[in-house]
């Protein structure tokens, strides 16, 4: 008897994980092609001063706050990183930032970032796990 399987989560789940597809859209640049996967991360309870030192040393001005299994919890941009260095990251971060999936086209993201005046946004899988950070210069907008 033929084995039949139902992939209920479907192609949205597949693309949300940044896996390759075929078809006419596959040739267009997507966030998975430009996302910075080397963005610094930290935990909720890390001291902000320590996080800032690490972020600056790595040449960044942003850090993504993640859970132990890399689910995005918040974002520390330059302004938040400059807060009281003795605060835990949880107290300084912007909680629950809007996240985007790796299959979003670069052109679409350029419009989103311009419309919403975003400098950077986390890119996640469909289950919320961090893929990386996309900055406005990564999608062809003027950098900081």
């Amino acid at each position: 008897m033929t084995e039949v399987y139902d992939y209920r989560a479907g192609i949205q789940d597949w693309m949300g994980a940044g896996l390759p597809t075929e078809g006419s859209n596959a040739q267009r640049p997507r966030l998975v092609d430009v996302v910075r996967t080397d963005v610094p991360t930290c935990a909720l309870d890390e001291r902000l001063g320590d996080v800032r030192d690490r972020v600056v040393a790595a040449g960044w001005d942003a850090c993504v706050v993640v859970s132990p299994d890399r689910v995005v919890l918040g974002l520390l941009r330059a302004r938040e990183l400059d807060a009281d260095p003795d605060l835990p990251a949880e107290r300084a971060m912007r909680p629950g930032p809007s996240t985007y999936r790796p299959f979003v086209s670069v052109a679409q993201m350029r419009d989103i970032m311009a419309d919403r005046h975003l400098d950077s946004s986390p890119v996640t899988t469909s289950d919320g796990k961090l893929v990386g950070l996309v900055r406005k210069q990564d999608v062809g907008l003027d950098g900081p």
Partner: protein
Amino acid sequence: MVRAVDRDGVRRLMEQGAQIIDVLPAREYSEDHLPGAVNLPLRKIEADACRELDSGRPIVVYCADFA
């Protein structure tokens, strides 16, 4: 009997030579589909499945998502 499978399971089945069936409309299939997937839109699947599929290999069916 149809069994549920997750993303990792699909990847394993692909490596084992499973047939991947996209039941979305042809236009959506032409834009994006899983590697190697065949398009059998739901409204045609009963008529075409026997002719187009190999009953000796596992079959994975998917659409957009479960919503």
